[in-house]
Structure formats: C-alpha cells, structure tokens
C-alpha cells in the first residue's frame, strides 16, 4: 500500500506561544488505514488534524517547520480549498460547522464551492445521505437536529466531496454510547466498503480499540507510541501515567498477566475476553 499522508519533521508553534504544539512529528499513513489518535488534552491532537487539512499554516499563524504531504500535495503550497478534494474534515462542535438552514443545502455547500453541475450535486447528496443513514433528514432544518444527527450531517457533508481521507476531531464528544456506535459503524462502512482512509481523534479508547487498525498516542506535541491496537494497549506502563484507561477487557487481561495467569495476546472485544477467561479458567482447572 502506498502512503497517502506523509508527515516528516513537523514542528508547529502557535503565534504568541513559546511551547511547540507539535514537536518533530513523523507520520506515515497508508491508504485504507483506520487510525485512532488518543492523548491527554493539550497533547496536540487537534493541531495535528489541522495540519493535515491545511488549516495550519493557511488559517492560523505560527512557525511551521517540516513538511506535510497529503495525497501528493504539499499543504504549504496548496490552499485548503485545493486540499478539500483529497481530505474531508469533521470537527468537534457540529453546531458551529453548519452553514445552511436545511440539511440538503448543508451538503450542497461544499459541492457548490467545487463548481459541480446540478445533477452531479443531486447524485452525490443522495449518495452521502444514504451512506450515513440519514436520508430521512434531507429536508429537515439543521437547527432542530439532535447532536448525533448533526454529527452525521457533518460527516455526510464531508464525504459528499468524495475525499480519499477523512479526518475527524472527536466526532462523538457530544454523543451517548448508542450515537457513538452509529457514528463508528458509519466510519467502518466508509473505510471497508468505500476505501476511505480514516483518521479519528477520540477520548473513548474502547471504540478505538474496537474499530481502528492502528493506534497513536500523543503527549506534549510528540507521538509517544504507535502501532497496532494490541501493541499499543500492551504498553499500560506508558498509557496509565497519561491518564488513558484501557478498555475494561484489556485491563482484566493485564491483571491476569501480572499475576502470571495469562500469557497470550490482549483481548480488545468482549467475545475475545470471553475466550481468554475460559482459557484461564480451564488452565486453572487442569492445574488443580
């Protein structure tokens, strides 16, 4: 697989700040990846996302070192609008992202900016609404949607632009567990069936563990660990001090390991944990 985002030696200092928000970041995202980024507040997660879609350095002033290549385009030389064709973005506050008063027009906004013909807009709007499962909201007023609906409208308006990459900054911060699951199922569908590379910043680690193919932990502007979910979650010695609580099933396996009762891989889901526990109990029964 070829890399679709390549970040090398990226350092960014916001104007008026002395501490770099990002410090020597190197990152290589392959096409079709589903990457989760986690870390304490102020770790630079949002700044990293803003560097990918070109908002930094075009919107926020500051000192920018290193290079960011997105889909073969240098983000310093290409405007946000040019990058918009490659990378779609969804931000934390879904309310503030809405520009139109009707859902349909909200999706049309980005397409109008790309100067697409009307029939093509029509097609893409229908498609994006179907993928995100909100076709029934097409003619609804954007101000009267629930948090989860707004979030899905934001995702739909991003994917209507047919991006190759989707960057989401805490897309489920205002959602309940059910709404969160719906959003992640939508992302999984986009990743698996539409080949969209997904990068998601998230605080709820159990969802990252369940859905992502790779995890990245950030702290103080640096990437602390990076790897597959199992590799990262195994390093509880690093995660604990950062205040990242592993999913309960992983914690359980960790405790079993500490007591020397279990030696295999870390489980990420409940059914995997079930296998682990039955194995431990079986071994224990044999031992007795």
């Amino acid at each position, binding site marked *: 697989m070829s890399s679709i985002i390549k970040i090398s030696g990226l350092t960014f200092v916001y104007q008026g700040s002395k501490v770099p928000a990002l410090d020597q970041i190197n990152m290589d995202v392959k096409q079709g990846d589903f990457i989760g980024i986690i870390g304490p507040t102020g770790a630079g997660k949002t700044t990293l996302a*803003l560097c990918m*879609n*070109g*908002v930094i350095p*075009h*919107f926020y002033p500051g000192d920018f070192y290193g290079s960011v290549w997105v889909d073969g385009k240098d983000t310093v030389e290409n*405007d*946000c*609008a*040019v*990058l*918009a*064709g490659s*990378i*779609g*973005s969804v*931000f934390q*506050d879904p*309310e*503030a*992202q*809405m*520009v*139109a*008063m*009707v859902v*349909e*027009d909200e999706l*049309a*906004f*980005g*397409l*109008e*900016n*790309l*100067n*697409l*013909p*009307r029939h093509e*807009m*029509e097609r893409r*709007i229908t498609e994006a609404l179907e993928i995100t499962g909100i076709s029934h909201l097409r003619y609804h007023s954007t*101000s009267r949607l629930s948090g989860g609906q707004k979030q899905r409208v934001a995702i739909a*308006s*991003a994917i209507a*632009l047919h991006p190759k990459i989707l960057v989401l900054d805490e897309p489920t911060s205002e959602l309940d567990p059910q709404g969160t699951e719906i959003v992640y199922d939508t992302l999984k569908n986009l990743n698996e069936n539409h080949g969209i590379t997904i990068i998601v910043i998230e605080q709820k680690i159990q969802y990252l563990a369940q859905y992502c193919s790779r995890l990245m932990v950030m702290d103080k502007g640096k990437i602390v660990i990076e790897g597959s979910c199992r590799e990262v979650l195994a390093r509880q010695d690093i995660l604990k001090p950062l205040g990242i609580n592993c999913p309960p099933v992983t914690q359980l396996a960790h405790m079993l390991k500490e007591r020397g009762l279990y030696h295999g891989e870390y489980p990420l889901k409940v059914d995997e944990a079930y296998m682990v526990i039955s194995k431990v109990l079986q071994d224990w029964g044999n031992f007795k």
Partner: protein
Amino acid sequence: MPALVEYIPKDTLVHRLNPITKILWTLAVLSVCFILQEPLAIFIVLLSNILVAWLSGVLKQVIPAIIGLFIFSLVLILFQIFFVKEGNTLFYVIPFINLGRVTDVGLKFSAVLALRMLATTSTIPILMTTTQMKDIIVVLTEKCRVPFKYSFMLVTALRFIPTFIEEMDQILQAQRSRGYETDTSNPFKKLFIIIPLAIPLLILSVKKAEKMAISMEVRGFGAGPRSYYNRVDMKKTDYAVIALLGTITLAVLIM
C-alpha cells in the same frame, strides 16, 4: 424559539411566486407610497398589504409585527405633530395655556408620514414569511449579480440567530444558578445586568464564527467559480404580477 419573522412553509400563490417578483412588489409599494400624498390612499395600500398577508396565510405571524410597527408610528406622529406651524388650529393638548398646538396641516402631514412608514415596512415581514432565505440568496447572486460573499453574509447572520438565542439562554441560566440577579424593572440597572451576559456571548460567538470559517475553508469556500444547487425560475404568474404592479405604479404616477 421566540416569534421571530421566520419562513412559514405553505403552498399559496404568494409562496410560489419568484422572490424577484416579491422584492419588486415591496419596491412598488415603496414608490406608490411616496407618490401618494393622501392619508386615505396610503391607508388603502396598507390594507392591500394585509390582504396579501391574508392570501398567503401568514396573517397570524405578520399582525404582531404590524402592531409593533404601529406603536412605532404613533411615536413618530408624536415627534412630528407639534412642530408643524402652518394651517388652522384644530385643538391644543393642554387647552388653557395653549400648549401643544395641533394644526390640520400638521395632523395630515404626520398621518401621511406614519402611514407611509407602516405601509412600506409591513411588506418586509410578509416577504420574509413567504420566501425562503436560500431562494432570496439565489436570486440576489444569480439574477441581481450581488457577490456571493455578501449574500452569504446575510444568510449566515440569519442562521446564527437561533444559535445565539440558545447560547444566551444557557448563559442566563448559568449566571442565575450562581446567584446572579437578572430581573429588574429599572432600565438603568438592566444596562449593567446585561454586561456579564453579553461578554460570554460575544466570546462564544467569535469562537463559533472562527470554527465555522474553518469548516467553510476545508469545504473549498472561495476556491473560484461557484455553482448553485437551488434554482428559482420565473413563471407565467410572475410576469403577470410584475405587469400588474407596473401598471398600478404607472397609474398612480400619472394621476
């Protein structure tokens, strides 16, 4: 949400008209009111506006706005009526010391002024309740060649109103829950009460605006030529209404 002048979805003749036609109607009312000099004639124009509101089924929403404008026009009369010196004295407000002289010319003059104000401004709530903002934007940018940035500014200002009302409500509750006194009948005290409410609202709105700007930027806003999803066509009824409006305006001008 409080009773703001908002689009009321209905399927009436007025709703179906092209925004251009409706904007031309407001302009026609405006010019007719300024040509006419008789209070009664301008009153008839005002009645015609109310008739249009009734035809489009938005009378219930428009009447409060007209009542508000009516109060405002009464104030306007008060400010005007005593300053006209010409004409025959009709009566004095305080008779024995001859204070507050009201003349027939003055009464007519201020009545014309107030009715003009009422008739010309009452078209706006009717326009807003029967026309979707996005359609106005489309005709402004496509037909009237207003740069998209300006019409977008207008629609965004309107879109943010419900958001700000919600924010204000939250701030109000937050401050109240911390024991902040927000109720008073003293208008001067009210001025000071508003400060701890207005400052958070201002900061929040600047932040919201910034987020929205970023969200627009990453969706390719301002990249170059732009196409439009919504389309508004002129229909036969539009041409008929425009012709009628033109005839009436011309007739009034000649008479």
